[in-house]
């Protein structure tokens, strides 16, 4: 029956709706705590002064950008393997958030680079591979929007996401290789002074905060995608079918 086929998204829709506020709340609380620790509690770096504090945003953003790409590729792969539409919708919903974190990582990297290296942009290995990651996110999203047929858009961008995930590590190592060839050992962000425990703690809290934020935003976006695609009822008016689905769980 058709109902059984639609059941996954239809059951998922209200569930996602109830989860969003929780993830959002945790994200906000952790972000406040993490930023407070990063900006006020963590000790001043004796080499870089106060400017280093941007890494409390930069490093978690960079981690999330890569993590989300892998998660997107996994959903895409599951979608291809099991022919599950919800998976494709998840992949679609993840891409913009991942791209946002990539951009944030680049922006904060530039902000950190100006006082540290004296230039807004240097061809540092990490920054360069982040830039290429941003291109890949752009590729996934542009490929999807250029194809009108939904089924093909899903599958084509899934194939590209999967190809990209094989490439991300290769690109990362090749850029690092290239970097050492041209510049010798450059100033790198993680090395240098040993990280204080509070710094590490703040960074971890920020990472979890970003993670929770991603989940909240992605769930909200996947709900929009569902409404768009399945002609599901919108946010406010939920008819009986959906309540049934919730109770059936």
């Amino acid at each position: 029956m058709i109902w059984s086929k639609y059941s996954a998204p239809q059951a998922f829709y209200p569930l996602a709706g109830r989860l969003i506020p929780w993830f959002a709340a945790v994200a906000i609380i952790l972000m406040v705590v993490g930023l407070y620790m990063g900006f006020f509690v963590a000790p001043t770096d004796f080499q870089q002064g106060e400017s280093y504090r941007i890494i409390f945003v930069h490093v978690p953003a960079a981690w999330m950008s890569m993590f989300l790409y892998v998660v997107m590729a996994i959903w895409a792969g599951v979608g291809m393997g099991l022919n599950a539409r919800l998976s494709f919708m998840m992949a679609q919903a993840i891409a913009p958030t991942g791209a946002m974190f990539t951009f944030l990582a680049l922006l904060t990297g530039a902000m950190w680079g100006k006082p540290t290296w004296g230039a807004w942009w240097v061809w540092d290995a990490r920054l360069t591979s982040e830039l290429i990651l941003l291109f890949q996110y752009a590729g996934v999203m542009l490929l999807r929007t250029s194809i009108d047929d939904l089924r093909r858009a899903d599958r084509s961008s899934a194939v590209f996401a999967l190809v990209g995930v094989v490439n991300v590590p290769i690109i990362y190592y090749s850029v690092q290789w290239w970097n050492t060839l041209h510049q010798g050992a450059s100033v790198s962000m993680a090395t240098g002074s040993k990280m204080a425990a509070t710094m590490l703690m703040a960074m971890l809290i920020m990472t979890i905060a970003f993670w929770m934020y991603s989940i909240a935003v992605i769930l909200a976006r996947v709900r929009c995608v569902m409404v768009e695609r399945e002609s599901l009822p919108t946010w406010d008016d939920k008819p009986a079918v959906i309540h049934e689905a919730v109770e059936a769980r």
Partner: protein
Amino acid sequence: MSHSSMWDSISGIIQRDLLLAMRRWSDAAMSVFFLVIVVSLFPLGVGPEPAVLRTIAPGVLWVAALLTCLLSLSRVFTPDYLDGVLEQMVLVPQPLSLLVLGKVLAHWVISGLPVVLLSPLLGLQFGLDGEALGVLVLSLLLGTPTLSMIGAIGAALVLGVRGSGLLVALLVLPLYVPVLIFGAGAVTSSMAGIGGEANLSLLGACLVLSLFLAPWATAAALRVALE
């Protein structure tokens, strides 16, 4: 499935593509001219200083090779897609990824091999000397098939999509980064006297990896495009 009919199918594809390329030799000639023109533009833009030209030569030649391959990508699958041969290809009782390998091989012979053969001449224009020229040719010989393999994935993904020419560039160019780095790096390091072996073997590794993975991804993309 017998090996002989598999070989019939693959060699049939290669033969037909090469025959078509001979009938339409102007297509291949255009790629070659494009390469020569792009490479010749750089001295005009940068200035004729031999030392500068020698420094930028590996990068310029490699970027030009990359762009040449990119421009020829629309010829890999699009004609077959438009005249229905691609449908027939998908329905051949052989693994599609092997047929794709045949297509890509033919594409490389038509558009990659001329680049490799022409490269020593272009290298001379930039004042590269004996060993660096050899490494340049070798790096292109190892690298351009990888470019064709990766490019085929992009070409298959954008089949019949509006604005496909620009889109394929956006998809494929980021994936070309490692090949560019190792290829140009091989020439640069041989010029610096540290030898290009490490970069060349990394290029070889890229080629092997793409031979295993790219036909499979391309086949998946082709099936999606034909649904």
